[in-house]
């Protein structure tokens, strides 16, 4: 799952010079994930994993790293 998220985020949303050195705990917001990027990421996750992420949960704590994103997705996967 994280690999899929990595590919989408690094290919479509933010530029990171050395993606391999970007850890699963590194801060995606610091790295340049902005409001438009978060919107697109959520739409991508909803499509790919066939889940709905509630607006009320769109919070920095859920989107600021690959680990946080994975936890958030898992909470909504049956």
């Amino acid at each position, binding site marked *: 799952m994280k690999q899929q998220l990595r590919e989408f985020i690094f290919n479509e949303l933010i530029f990171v010079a050395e993606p391999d050195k970007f850890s699963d705990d590194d801060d995606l917001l610091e790295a340049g*994930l902005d*409001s438009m*990027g978060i919107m697109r990421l959520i739409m991508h996750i909803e499509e790919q994993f066939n889940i709905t992420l509630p607006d009320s949960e769109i919070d920095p704590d859920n989107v600021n790293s690959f680990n946080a994103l994975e936890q958030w997705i898992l909470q909504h996967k049956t």
Partner: protein
Amino acid sequence: MSTATDDIIQILNPSDCFTLAMDEEIRQENMPGSQCGFALELASAPDSTAIEQRIHEFSQRFPLVFASLQQRGKRFFWCQREHKHPLFHQHKTTDSSNEAEFHHQTVQQLLNHLQARETIPALEFHLIQSANKNTFLMRWIHPFCDAKGADLILRYLCTDDAEQRKQFDFPKLEPLVNQQLAKYRWWQKVLMFIKAKRYISQLDTLQSIIHADTSKAPKQLNFKTFTLSIGQTQAINKLNRQHVGLTGGSLYYIGCFMRALNKMNPDQAGEAYCTPYAFNLRRNKALSPLLSNHVAPLFAQAPKSLLPDRAALFQHLKQQNTNTIREKLDYAFLPIMWAASWLSLAQHGEKLRNSMRTGTDRSSFWFSDIGNVNLSNASFFNSDITKIYHLCQISSPPAIAFLSCQFNQQLTLSYNFIEPLFTEEQIEALHKNVLEELLTE
């Protein structure tokens, strides 16, 4: 119009053509076309020799800066010029009685400079100096680059390390609009085209509210900028997050500006406020591409009936933005831009600007939120940067643009307006309303 092709350097991409159509619309009003500015106010005199050297290096690396915009047949191209023009200009005064006025007037004159499209330099740098005030202005014409590209050019100039400067615009990329379009099959492009047209038809069911006094002819661009304190900026950022959440960002400014305009004259004719905003195809923090345009337009529209209720207005703008991304309308505009690039400039401009239903202007105002300006240095050639603001020419109507950015934890609001369709007094009153809206709990 020449038919020669030997001097062609490159063709304009669909996004460049989109900004060129706006350039033409502004020129049709006897105004200077779509000139834009990026200004840095500096705490002390910068090292002008070093600036000149860095600009020279930049021009060696990006020789397109000397190109001329020419029409060949139906299409437009960047072409070789016979002679290179100077890129760096200095403006000085020894009169210290009204320094602020000298700086404002010089910037205003540069943005109002009328010159034929074929001869005007695509990009220029100006250092404006007086005893106690220093302004560095980068002026460009929109078909040459978009605001993000201008931001990257400035970052390039500010980067002291030569090795780091080499990372800009590397690797060389095809225009991102073309790259994205190449991902779709022809029938997908047709479906996207239809989808985007439906979206525009839907917007056009409501007539846009225009506050400019359109009985007057446009004479000149004027601007007013206001930098808020760190405390005010923090409060606004907090309220922004509270009202539109993590995914709304710029919508807070748009909603507040709509309400502020409405307060100026709640009885102004029209059914909705509508503003275009740019969807940038670059990845965030990418250092390429610098030149050309890599954006598509999106719209924020709110019916007048929603304006009195702040919560309902922000909820509406947020929902509209969510639907736009969910339905992939951001990408749907690319085939429209591609198709429009084959139209004459007059036809392109009309489609871009006017409502299909009423034939009047679709935009109530122009808007751009640059967000945080992250330069590699807080100083510029040995001088601290105290303020950054943006400028742009606008078609009339709407004759007003609202531009925002944050630098050093401070928000700067730049109001660009066409006189006499708007007056300075109106803009001051408008800013009071905007500030009140931005800071309302």
